């Protein structure tokens, strides 16, 4: 296959558990092609740096394969990999001058002095620091150190250059300049760049391919345009750029209803599919009151330099809009959306599914079902509809005995049926909020229990990350299903 040939680095089902028992990466697979500029983008703690360190050889995968040109390099020490790194804090050797720092790798390889001189001169030209050979590291500014760190890495002509949040220590203006320079350098060198950042703008500006990560998992891989315009899930939509997220459902062929109106859209899903609609603030059109499909009132309008951020309150939601015109607070306006400005994400039906096992049965209360984090007492007919008890034995409607012992049961609930409480005992399970997204008129929270199960809850109140909360769902809202053996 043509594709296979171009693959330079491949991670296959990589898992990483640190010595203290923390699992950073559960099961991750990723392909990186020759000559690509790939950015691993995600919030801090999402495992992006760990992946970079595994490729660099500073961490070993706990399991899984790490292939370079088709060969497993998991156990190869960093010094034997054709890969060089630009470290987050540059890690330039303070006891060596600029020349010796850059020539460090060449000297170890035994390159002769003349070639060393030439190569050092060439890379210094490339990073625009000609004549800096004799300078001591401590006399360089942050930006200059950054360039020397890049020079020190590329002088070795690696197949892959790893950049670990390399621009984060620079000020905003310098960072912008370096973004452009790095991109040009990538074109000139033609080697693979793998860049790690938490800055979405940086990722969108520089990369050929962006890998959006959260929580040790890849959320989406795509070109910058793809991940901005076609986010695959709510996390990506919320993390990349600003977005209005509405809850709604499909009402016809390419017809979607949300925010109190029906819109045409370009995505085609079956009628009645529950969806989340993502609309970028710059795609919302503001029209005169009475026109447009949604009516609202301006809540605020702030000047941001190139555009105004206008917040409009409609009777169903609050919408953020980036537009070029200024409005007065209280202005009545109409809002409209073009079909291609609506991006539809079908509701993920796999969330909030938990598996348990029936442990015991009491005639009065029902089954005790043990899940990983909690135990629920469920009336028997919720599990086996129509069942009844006769002679102390649980029977089906037809009178057959039910062998309930050890039966596996799946429980699920909808995020909108759950509520959060700060009383850890109030709900059926408790955990810490680790992520939340503002939807049109509520927040979508992800709560993680101690055993690392996630619970997704829509709640109107504003909670904070790290809040310890319990999840409450009324018994009638749980959906139970017996797993067929």
């Amino acid at each position, binding site marked *: 296959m043509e594709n296979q040939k171009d693959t330079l680095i491949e991670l296959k089902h990589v898992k990483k558990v640190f010595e203290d028992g923390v699992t950073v990466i559960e099961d991750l697979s990723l392909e990186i092609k020759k000559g690509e500029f790939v950015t691993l983008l995600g919030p801090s703690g999402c495992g992006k740096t760990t992946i970079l360190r595994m490729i660099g050889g500073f961490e070993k995968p706990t399991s899984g394969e790490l292939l370079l040109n088709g060969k497993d390099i998991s156990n190869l020490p960093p010094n034997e990999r054709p890969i060089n790194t630009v470290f987050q804090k540059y*890690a330039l050797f303070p006891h060596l001058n600029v020349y010796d720092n850059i020539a460090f790798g060449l000297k170890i390889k035994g390159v002769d002095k003349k070639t060393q001189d030439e190569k050092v001169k060439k890379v210094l030209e490339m990073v625009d620091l000609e004549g800096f050979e004799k300078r*001591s*590291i401590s006399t360089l*500014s942050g930006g200059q150190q950054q360039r020397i760190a890049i020079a020190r890495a590329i002088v070795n002509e690696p197949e892959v250059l790893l950049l670990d949040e390399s621009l984060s*220590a620079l000020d905003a203006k310098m960072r912008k300049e370096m973004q452009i320079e790095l991109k040009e350098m990538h074109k000139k060198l033609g080697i693979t760049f793998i860049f790690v950042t938490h800055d979405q703008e940086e990722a969108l500006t520089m990369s050929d391919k962006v890998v959006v990560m959260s929580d040790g998992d890849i959320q989406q891989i795509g070109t910058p345009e793809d991940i901005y315009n076609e986010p695959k899930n709510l996390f990506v939509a919320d993390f990349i750029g600003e977005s209005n997220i509405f809850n709604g459902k499909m009402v016809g062929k390419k017809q979607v209803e949300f925010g109190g109106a029906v819109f045409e859209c370009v995505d085609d899903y079956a009628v009645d599919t529950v969806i989340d609609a993502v609309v970028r603030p710059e795609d919302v059109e503001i029209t005169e009151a009475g026109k447009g499909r949604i009516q609202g009132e301006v809540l605020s309008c702030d000047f941001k330099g190139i555009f105004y951020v206008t917040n409009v309150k409609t009777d169903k939601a609050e919408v953020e809009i980036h537009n070029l015109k200024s409005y007065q607070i209280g202005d009545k306006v109409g809002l409209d959306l073009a079909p291609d400005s609506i991006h539809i994400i079908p509701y993920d039906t796999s969330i909030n599914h938990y598996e348990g096992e029936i442990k015991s049965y009491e005639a009065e209360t029902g089954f005790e079902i043990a899940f990983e984090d909690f135990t629920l007492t469920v009336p028997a007919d919720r599990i086996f509809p129509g069942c009844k008890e006769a002679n102390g034995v649980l029977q089906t409607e037809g009178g057959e005995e039910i062998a309930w012992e050890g039966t596996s049961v799946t429980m699920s609930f909808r995020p909108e049926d759950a509520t959060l409480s700060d009383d850890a005992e109030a709900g059926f399970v408790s955990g810490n909020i680790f992520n939340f997204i503002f939807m049109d008129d509520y927040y979508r929270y992800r709560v993680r229990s101690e055993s690392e199960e996630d619970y997704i809850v829509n709640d109107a109140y504003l909670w904070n990350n790290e809040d310890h909360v319990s999840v409450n769902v009324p018994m009638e809202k749980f959906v139970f299903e017996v797993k067929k053996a």
Partner: protein
Amino acid sequence: MKYTFHRKQLAIPYAIFLLLFVILPLLVVIFYAFTNEEGHVSFHNFVAFFQSGKTVGTLLYSIVIALVTTAICLLIAYPTAYILSKTGMKSGDALLLLFVLPMWINFTLRITALKEILTLLEGNLAFHPFANTIICMVYDFLPFMIMPLYNTLTKLDDSYVEAAQDLGAKKSHVFLKVILPLSVPGIVSGVTMVFLPSMTNYVVLDMVYNSTFIMGSLIGSYFSAYDWHNGSVISIILLLIICVITAISNRYTENDKADRRVGALK
């Protein structure tokens, strides 16, 4: 008149102490070193020091003992400090205590105990005077070498090691080209803390051998014989040696400061 308190006034007690117990005695020592018994200015004492085989021999012997002690301390302390610094903060500190703990036991007690152990092993200490002196000295000064090395090595940023590996350095190269040069400030301060005291430490020789064949005890023996002039000369010579060594080691600590500036930039 209103009395105003200045922070500088806090230094008065120490200034008095400095004047009475450091500067005045030093002037007295200098006076005696450059005068003869009649009270005339003379360099005879210095000439005599370098002409006498006994005094020059003692000086050389002291230097040799100090050099060997320092070298052995360094050889033992470096790997120890390196391993301790790599074990992770908590257990490292606990282990370090094991090496530093002997310092809390009375010095004479330690040397007496060591002397008994050596006697038990060798039968008679007279057979290996040099080796025994070195053993006692090393035992005494080792913690002073481990401490500064441990401090420097724990502060050494792991990213330097990773950067070196990344650039293709094998473990041996990483050590020789990165870890060792970056731990020079620790080595220098360890060496100063061991070399200078071990050159003048006469307690060990005195207790183990009743010997005065070391600079410190030489001074003591002149002074106890009321020969202020010759005793002062030796003091001055030692002082000069100390000044030279301190000047050299200061140059390294200045480099260390420059490194820290890089740290601030990062």
